[in-house]
């Protein structure tokens, strides 16, 4: 192999790469916040009301979890304008990521809620907690603490999956890589560099989530967050 690597040419495109990194961080953080909030709301709704609400939430979760993220993005970006909703590429990416992440968070938090033992709730009742207090202090918060590492793994996966948004022309990190590639034809170099950036972003995100976990739930949860790898659930 007589190929000489030239990473030097990439330096002049650092503005594009930096703006790509920034957009990746922005849509990832926003979708994590929105998706996680939606997940908590949906998982709570399905366990509180049951019946039709539970059926609808479960149907939503199953539909999202059994179709590819790319196709969901296509439906949001190309399909919504047909219904009269015109959205830009960045907004479409954010909507798609939030919809996707909400379904996964719902499923993870549901598992946590269902793992809370009945005797805990009875203990809460015996202490004279109101229904709301029981739900908040006995069910929801311990449930989230229990599944927090799994949830964080899903967040990291979502950040990595944001690279797929380049397919609908969102100008995030993968798209800026494609741009630089088209300018310099140094495909291998740019993709190696960008892969390393993604790796670094994944590590930083995991560390940040572990810190948040320490602040919210204490040291034990934080340690599990750092070492947890994506759980593949059925």
């Amino acid at each position, binding site marked *: 192999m007589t190929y000489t690597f030239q990473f030097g040419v990439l330096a002049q495109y650092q503005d594009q790469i930096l703006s790509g990194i920034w957009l990746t961080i922005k849509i990832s953080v926003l979708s994590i916040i929105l998706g996680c909030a939606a997940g908590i709301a949906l998982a709570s709704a399905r366990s509180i009301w049951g019946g039709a609400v539970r059926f609808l939430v479960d149907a939503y979760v199953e539909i999202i*979890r059994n179709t590819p993220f790319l196709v969901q993005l296509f439906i949001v970006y190309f399909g919504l304008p047909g219904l009269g909703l015109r959205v830009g590429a960045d907004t479409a990416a954010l909507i798609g990521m939030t919809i996707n992440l909400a379904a996964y968070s719902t499923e993870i938090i549901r598992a946590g809620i269902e793992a809370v033992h009945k005797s805990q709730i009875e203990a809460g009742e015996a202490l004279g907690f109101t229904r709301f207090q029981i739900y908040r202090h006995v069910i929801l918060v311990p449930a989230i603490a229990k599944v927090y590492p799994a949830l964080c793994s899903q967040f990291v996966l979502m950040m990595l999956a944001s690279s797929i948004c380049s397919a609908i022309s969102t100008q995030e990190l993968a798209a800026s890589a494609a741009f630089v590639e088209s300018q310099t034809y140094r495909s291998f170099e740019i993709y190696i560099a960008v892969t390393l950036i993604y790796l670094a972003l994944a590590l930083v995100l995991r560390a940040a989530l572990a810190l948040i976990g320490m602040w919210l739930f204490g040291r034990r949860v934080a340690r599990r967050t750092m070492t947890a790898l994506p759980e593949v659930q059925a």
Partner: protein
Amino acid sequence: MTLKTFGLDQFGFLLFSLQWTLVLTVIALIGGGLLGFAVALARTAQLKPVRIAAASYIQIIQGIPVLMILFLSYYGLSLAGFELPPLIAAGASMTIYASGYLAEIWRGCIQAVPKQQWEASESLAMTRLQQYRYVILPQAIRISLPPTVGFAVQVVKNTSITSIIGFVELARAGQLINNATFQPFRVFLAVAALYFVVCYPLSQLSRLLERRLHVGSSR
């Protein structure tokens, strides 16, 4: 000029492309399974450097986007002088992707076999190979079935990413039809429905296996 509408012919094309999605999934699961199994064994090996190397491999694969694995193997292989058809490039990258995740899943399954099983088989003077062959793996495989089937769902879904390098599978076929018909909502809903038809039964199977497993074990 009249545009084509999304009709039976187009749906037929989607069905035809679905088979490439399935072919790619099978390649990824077989290739990724073999490689992943080797990495899982390395991850539980007795030599520490081997364990660290395997762990780093898993961390790296799980820390980068599938899209980047795809681009790197696509451009990397052509740099190395191989002129490969997209199916091979796509298959190679899906294999690498699957191996990183399967290795970690199976490591968990191997380590989930109780320690006493290792000790008991060792006290029967079994070699390491015999321990794996007759004691550990038969139990680990049983544990590994539900998560492995669950991961197959992820593989089916992630094969859609290969459409970005131009491999014509289900998602790419949807794009092509959309370019001809301009009925994105219908086309992509049909594409999503086809993925769902493949993935949902697998998800349910994984759940069923999981429930069976828990009935069987008293732990």
